[in-house]
């Protein structure tokens, strides 16, 4: 009998509260972001790279794996449209670099989604529930902080084989700690806000409060950290590939291309420089975009 009116009150109470501040915050932030020229330029460069990475391998007559023995180590040329040249097996570098961008961007995206997902869940629950649960969960984060992250991932990959999926999961699973801490802090301060109290007073249950009231308010900070986690993850994949622990030939990633290029730097510098420029551009733009988002969404800086 008491359940029905409760539900009605809850939906009435939460609809305007969840929607109204959210929209104005985002409009505000977007306006500010648009004035940040560095961030906008970064966004445009990123979009161009993403589109090229999708389109180029699709329309190019070359693929990333078939050697052309007559065209080894061709410097960038218009002949046959090898505008980035060919590698030591005569494979078109443009297509290989675009495939590298695909893989690196995909690893960045998947691993950030995994780490943001775990981090938000962990932090929001710890911050909302509080007490013993909070201190236990944060103790786990503290301990994981002390785990030597690079060695662990290397051991994981060496011991259990190098598949792409494992690399995604391994990187994602160890990079959620910062997000968990930040989200917990935010949740702790949000938990005592009036609108949460109002929701609780009108009988909304705990999980529902976390899902409907807390997580939407954390979106800003989560977007920022996802943008900043992605470049870190992309660099880490490149690092693993450099050690020979990343994706396996003939598949390629920007890290593999860079490390192959480094070996032939003296005779064929373009093999290092072209993929390195793309890698740096992606990481650079994501970092700038993340910084821009932080400035745009940070209420302290208004």
């Amino acid at each position, binding site marked *: 009998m008491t359940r029905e009116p409760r539900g009605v009150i809850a939906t009435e109470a939460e609809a305007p509260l969840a929607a109204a501040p959210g929209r104005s915050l985002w409009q505000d932030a977007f306006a500010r972001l648009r004035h940040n020229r560095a961030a906008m330029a970064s966004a445009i460069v990123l979009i161009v790279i993403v589109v090229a990475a999708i389109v180029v391998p699709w329309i190019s007559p070359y693929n990333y794996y078939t050697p052309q023995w007559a065209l080894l180590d061709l410097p960038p040329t218009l002949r046959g449209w090898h505008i980035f040249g060919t590698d030591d097996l005569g494979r078109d570098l443009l297509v290989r670099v675009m495939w590298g961008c695909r893989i690196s961007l995909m690893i960045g995206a998947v691993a950030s989604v995994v780490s943001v997902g775990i981090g938000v869940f962990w932090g929001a629950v710890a911050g909302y529930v509080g007490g013993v649960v909070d201190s236990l969960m944060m103790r786990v984060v503290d301990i994981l902080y*002390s*785990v030597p992250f690079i060695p662990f991932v290397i051991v994981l990959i*060496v011991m259990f084989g190098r598949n792409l999926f494992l690399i995604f999961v391994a990187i994602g699973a160890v990079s959620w700690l910062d997000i968990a801490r930040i989200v917990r802090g935010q949740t702790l301060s949000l938990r005592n806000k009036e609108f949460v109290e109002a929701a609780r007073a009108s009988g909304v249950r705990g999980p529902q409060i976390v899902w409907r009231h807390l997580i939407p308010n954390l979106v800003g900070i989560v977007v920022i950290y996802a943008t900043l986690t992605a470049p870190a993850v992309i660099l880490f994949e490149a690092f693993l590939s450099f050690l020979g622990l990343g994706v396996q030939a003939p598949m390629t990633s920007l890290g593999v291309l*860079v490390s192959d290029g480094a070996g032939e730097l003296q005779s064929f510098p373009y093999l*290092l420089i072209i993929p390195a420029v793309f890698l740096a551009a992606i990481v650079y733009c994501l*970092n700038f975009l993340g910084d821009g988002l932080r400035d745009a969404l940070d209420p302290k800086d208004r």
Partner: protein
Amino acid sequence: MGGCGSAGREAALIQYTLRRLLGAIPTLLIIITLAFLLLHAAPGGPFDVQKRIPPAIEQNIERMYHLNEPLYEQYFRYLGDILRGNFGPSYQYRDTSVNQIISEGLPVDLVIGGLALLGSLLIGLPIGIVAALRRNTRWDYWPMGLAMVGISVPVFVVAPILILLFAVYLRWLPAGQWDNGSISHVILPAVALAGPYIAFVARLMRGSMVEVLNSPFILMARAKGLPEHRVVLRHAMKPALIPMVSFLGPAVVGVITGSIVIETIFGLPGIGRAFVDGALNRDYTLVLGVTILYGVLIVAFNLLADICYSLLDPRVRYQ
């Protein structure tokens, strides 16, 4: 530090340190256990070879390394050994202990890492301070944009280009090898390793300096009519440097573990390289030993950084 070192505060600090030290014990135990179980759960053993060896020899080898015992016995034996500071024999290099490998490799990492960190502070701090003082001018934009490049370009791109430039074309410095740490062999690796850290330090210092310069006590110092250099050096510097302390803990660990790539490129005999080789050759004891060493370093330096932080920042209160 500072004049407010009352007896109560000191006692609280000692208590806090002790509590943190005690708290580090379970953390280390968990790291050791995790690493131990992970390695033993992995498919394939260190003595799997192509050619079949007679079972008697196999048994002898297993007995020698106690691999025939139940897992928990191996675990407690290993814990006991670690407590005595003994990481056991290497599976990969005969007649060599993990302790030997670590004690030979660690000095290399300490020299390169120490130089890199020192250099990044000497270069990064002034850049950050100037950028904060000349906020939103080209003295801010260009160095900070460049710092972002430093963060975005991986070490394994910078290092080969440095080698090409200074070792191959200009012939000023050797392209690799350790040569007992002679200065000319140390410069390039240290510079390559320092790159991203210069950028981190500069960005962090700019941020904290901007925050300090906006605070009321700086307004007060300026209102008194102090010259700008005195405001910056006497008043703003110290509080702005405090956040650097908590950066240094993880940074020390970062340069030590992060030197794996540097060691590979320059052919240096550090522990990072030994670790990767060990992992590829399933040298369990070596991998375990180095992982635990890294774990101890992380715990120790984070603890040290936290304690220094609370010593320097009078606002910190221990619950």
